[in-house]
């Protein structure tokens, strides 16, 4: 518009001055707009990343891991009650109380998972199917418990009728419900990885765009000043000088905040989330491992299968070269330091030693437990399962929880830091835009007025 007017008038040099001022001011405003647009895009993108990782997927991993633990332990408690028989009244009541407690936990975790699934249809479907399945499981488990009570058997494997009913319940739990809970945990790992990989490219790139746009805006402001100074024989206009400083501050602050967010996302993912997910998976697998011990005791026909799944899960948690369970027991006891598997990389941390020690304790208790079973001492095996084995497992589980808690703290702190620095940027941005606009106006308008 201004260009066209200037050309139509085909004016002498002096009369083109207001045109030039308008053009240079226009370019300056455009480059400032570019700067703030880039800051806005970067801010929105970083906030989106922090929200997905920190407020959706992160808490969902914790909720679904809790769900897995509660479900898996419910099934283990039922198996415990069934092998106790008519002896050990106190332990039987304790196991039933723990079953009820886990059932409440499972229901709460399921509600939470459903709430967090938001509008993700696949996650919702899974949560609904879990809710249905849990009802069916409770019915089957109730039947098995009732049949067991009527049979009033010795400690050890219950009568066939009880085993058959329990098999239906445990198959539903282990083959249908637990995999869904576990896959839900993994799916959130996928969501986090994808979001992080995207943000790890986008945020630094926008940061570069902010720098380029910011330098451009600063150059334009300087150009405008130099032009005005030459034409109007004045040393710097204070308003434009202030606008330049404000732009510089906005640029530096913006680049710093985006850098902080980039780092916050990296920390949240690499130092927090990845380990939280790994420990959650290890804990899930370990819980079902200790259930396999009770099932091994309970169902003689499937004992080989349950012993094998116990080994398979042990190898997944902490891999040591071992072709069978007794070799594995030996290998764990001999403190082989170089371990692979889920927990392998986590053991180097300072709480890793406690996890390794308690895991060893659990495997040692398992060795003793299986020796009793092999010798046919059913009542002693039941006592071992409910005594030393359960205690060793609880100690190991507690060590895992401590480790997970530390990573969760790192995770939450990183997300909080990222969000609060973004909040500051968000609060300052309108003032920066308004202030710079006013200063520009104050710097340019009086000069233009001289030509009226």
């Amino acid at each position, binding site marked *: 518009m201004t260009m066209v007017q200037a050309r139509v008038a085909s004016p002498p040099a002096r009369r083109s001055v207001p045109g030039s001022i308008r053009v240079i001011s226009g370019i300056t405003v*455009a480059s400032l*707009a*570019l700067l703030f*647009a*880039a800051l*806005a*895009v970067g801010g929105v993108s970083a906030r989106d990343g922090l929200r997905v990782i920190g407020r959706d997927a992160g808490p969902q991993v914790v909720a679904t891991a809790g769900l897995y633990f509660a479900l898996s332990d419910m099934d283990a408690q039922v198996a415990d009650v069934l092998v106790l028989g008519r002896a050990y009244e106190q332990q039987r009541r304790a196991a039933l109380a723990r079953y009820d407690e886990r059932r409440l936990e499972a229901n709460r975790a399921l509600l939470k998972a459903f709430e967090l699934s938001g509008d993700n249809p*696949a996650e919702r*479907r899974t949560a609904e199917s879990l809710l249905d399945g849990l009802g069916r499981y409770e019915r089957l488990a109730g039947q098995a418990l009732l049949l067991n009570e009527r049979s009033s058997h010795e400690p050890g494997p219950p009568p066939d009728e009880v085993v058959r009913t329990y098999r239906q319940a445990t*198959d*539903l739990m282990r*083959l*249908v419900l*637990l*995999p*869904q809970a*576990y*896959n839900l945990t*993994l*799916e959130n*790992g*996928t969501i986090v*990885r*994808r979001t992080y*990989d*995207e943000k790890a*490219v*986008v945020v630094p*790139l*926008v940061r570069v*765009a902010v720098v380029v*746009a910011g330098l451009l805006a600063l150059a334009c402001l300087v150009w405008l000043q130099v032009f005005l100074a030459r034409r109007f024989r004045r040393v710097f206009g204070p308003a434009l000088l202030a606008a330049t400083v404000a732009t510089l501050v906005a640029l530096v602050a913006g680049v710093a905040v985006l850098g902080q967010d980039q780092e916050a996302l990296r920390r949240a993912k690499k130092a927090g989330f*990845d380990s939280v997910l790994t420990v959650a*998976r290890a804990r899930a697998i370990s819980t079902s491992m200790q259930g396999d011990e009770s099932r091994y005791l309970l169902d003689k026909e*499937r004992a*080989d*299968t349950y012993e*094998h*799944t116990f*080994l*398979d899960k042990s*190898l*997944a948690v902490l*891999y040591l*070269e071992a*072709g*069978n369970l*007794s070799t594995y027991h030996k290998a764990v006891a001999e403190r082989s330091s170089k371990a*692979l*598997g889920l927990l392998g990389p986590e053991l180097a941390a300072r709480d890793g030693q406690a996890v390794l020690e308690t895991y060893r304790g659990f495997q040692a208790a398992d060795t003793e437990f299986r020796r009793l079973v092999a010798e046919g001492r059913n009542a002693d095996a039941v006592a071992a399962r409910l005594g030393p084995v359960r205690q060793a497992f609880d100690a190991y589980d507690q060590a895992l929880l401590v480790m997970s808690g530390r990573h969760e703290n790192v995770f939450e702190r990183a997300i909080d830091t990222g969000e609060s620095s973004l909040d500051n940027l968000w609060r300052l941005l309108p003032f920066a835009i308004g202030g710079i606009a006013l200063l520009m106006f104050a710097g340019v308008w009086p000069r233009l007025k001289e030509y009226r």
Partner: protein
Amino acid sequence: MRRALAVVLALTALAASACGVGGGETLLDKDTVVIGVRPDLPQVGFRTSRGTFEGFDVDVAAYVAKKLGKKAVYRAVLAADREKVLVDGQADMVLATYTISQDRKAKVLFAGPYHISYQDILTRPGEQIRNVRDLRGRTICNVKGSNAADRVVVERGIAARLAPFDDYAACLSALKGGKVDAVTTNDVILAGLAIRDGSGLRLANAQFNEQRTGVGLRKGDVAGCEAVNRAITDMYQDGTASRLLHKWFGSAGLDLSTIAVPQFEGCS
């Protein structure tokens, strides 16, 4: 303002596509994926006389490839070569009754499992082998590249004699000729062999080891692995898995009472 935003976004998109978000080679970048399937297992992965492949694994592979929006090309892979074709890049995916194990995971990445089967025992009719412990002192096939026989001898600690064979066809004729007493491996493989053979070989239904059958992928292809897992979840949720299992194994007396999405191994 809007134009500036568009410019920034365009720049970002350009750079993002140039760097390839996430980095690392993935089968998701290909239009056609080469899938290794078994040529020697009836009902599971089998080369027909026309040179095409058919079976449960082949149908699962086709479903997954379709879900990923890829054209599928199949190539034959025997048990012993499953790791090699992935490591050498001759195949992008392997669906060949590939049981997930921690030592195999050192070389390849597993998506899935897409099916949980059990180790079982196939014998001549009239034979008195009911469970794994009855294999003590008997001769069993040890098919090259398969760890099934080892799982009896090493894992279960049962003193059976091993007779080496290149493939199941040779092993089966040795069973019928009385040179070996039993064949042990995944129940689906045994069911397929029994259906094809038709001479009344019988499954012991011993179900002594859980076998998690996964999709072999090149190590490091995390994005590909996650996409395959989503496809497998869909396959179970939309009923395809149940249809395929009944189609290929329904007549073999395999227990199909529980069909549910398996617990995944995880991609990292």
